[in-house]
């Protein structure tokens, strides 16, 4: 290829106006490291740049801000895309255009699928978390509403429970409604030893105590339990708390910690 031809190709290339065949020829020269082709191109490119620079305009700051925001939104998946796209190129730099195009297309496809999977997995997990949170919040809300309803009902009574010799400073309070059941809050109880828990008893006159639930206390000695109404039996007049095996037992076996009468 003579010098004139190289200069013509370089000019057309710098203007972005070469036809496909000429462009391939000139790029082959560049890729082969042809010094003359490179020098000519550098020269013409600088000229084009200088002409373009004459009309340079300052863009509105919003353009850059929008781009940066878009980048931040995409940044997590970006690293993977780059990795996947660049890996095959680094391994074999000299390939035919078709191979590069094919590898590029496959890599882009893989990258798109990978990004899609990552994104969908992340979102699936997030949706699961949010669903779980919503269920918990609904349960908590239902408990609160139930408690408020019990408190508002004139038939609700309050029972104070006093500490017994096992824990003289312990105190308890039972909000009790015959049909809705009640809520027991205890404080000042020693933490239950391993394998043990506090069990609530509803007692009606001389009848055997009815188990009404098991609870533990936190480090401050505070614990609470929602107590179901006593099914079928007579209205309880006494509530008591004993220390029992963790799963609870059908009849009291351990020391009594709290007791109170309606």
């Amino acid at each position, binding site marked *: 290829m003579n010098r004139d031809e190289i*200069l*013509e190709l*370089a*000019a*057309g*290339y*710098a*203007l*972005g*106006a*070469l*036809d496909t065949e*000429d462009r391939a020829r000139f*790029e082959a020269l*560049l*890729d082969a*490291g042809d010094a003359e082709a*490179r020098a000519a*191109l*550098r*020269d*013409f*490119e*600088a*000229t*084009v*740049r*200088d*002409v*373009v*620079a*004459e*009309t*340079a*305009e*300052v*863009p*509105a700051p*919003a*353009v*850059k801000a*929008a*781009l*940066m925001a*878009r*980048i*931040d939104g995409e*940044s997590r998946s*970006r*690293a993977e*895309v*780059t990795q996947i*796209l*660049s890996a095959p*190129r680094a391994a074999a730099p000299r390939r035919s255009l078709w191979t590069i195009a094919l590898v590029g297309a496959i890599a882009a496809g893989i990258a798109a699928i990978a990004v899609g999977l990552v994104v969908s997995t992340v979102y699936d997990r997030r949706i699961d978390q949010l669903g779980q949170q919503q269920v918990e919040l609904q349960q908590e809300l239902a408990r609160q509403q139930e408690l408020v309803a019990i408190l508002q009902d004139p038939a609700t009574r309050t029972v104070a429970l006093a500490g017994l010799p096992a824990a003289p400073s312990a105190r308890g309070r039972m909000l009790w409604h015959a049909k809705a059941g009640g809520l027991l809050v205890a404080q000042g109880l020693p933490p239950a030893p391993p394998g043990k828990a506090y069990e609530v008893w509803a007692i009606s006159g001389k009848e055997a105590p009815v188990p009404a639930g098991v609870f533990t206390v936190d480090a401050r000695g505070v614990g609470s339990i929602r107590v179901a109404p006593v099914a079928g039996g007579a209205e309880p007049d006494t509530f008591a708390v004993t220390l029992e095996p963790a799963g609870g037992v059908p009849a009291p076996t351990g020391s009594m910690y709290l007791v109170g009468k309606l």
Partner: protein
Amino acid sequence: MSSVSVPPSDVSAGLLARIAQGDREAFGRFYDAFAGLALGLIRRILRDPAAAEEVLQEVFWQIWREAARYDPRRGSPEAWLIVRAKTRAIDRLRAMRRREKTFVAPVDEAVASAPDLPAENPGVTAERRELAHAVLHGLPESQRRVVELAFFEGLTQSEIARRLGEPLGTVKTRARLGLERLRSMMKREGDIQP
């Protein structure tokens, strides 16, 4: 003399290499160095300021996504950017023209309602446009037509030959002579206004 200061190619190439690794800060610097250059070119092709800034954003988004494809053997980073800006702007122009042909009332509401840029200083901008205009008009008509059709209309050399009814070889020679003449004109201008 250039209206913008362009960093040396190896610095820009270094920025592109970092952008390819997802370096946000490098991208910011590359944008700051070249966005003005690209926007001027895009507006030379599109004219509509709102559409031009949209295209500018698309071009730099493409840079962000495809920086790894930049091959320094095939030209400078700014040339790589300029070609992308030109191609995108011409694509948009062609799409707008197609739409104008398709619709009876070719009023693009977005374009019509878009306020003109509260540009830096309209007087200065107009002056620069005149300057670029003057530079190109310093070329003989036959060379200027080839350069303009190639650069601002996105035609290939054989398309230009058909458009002008000239042999392909003539078009190729005029493109080269045109650029050589522009080069010496820019140098002279640089000498006068260092």
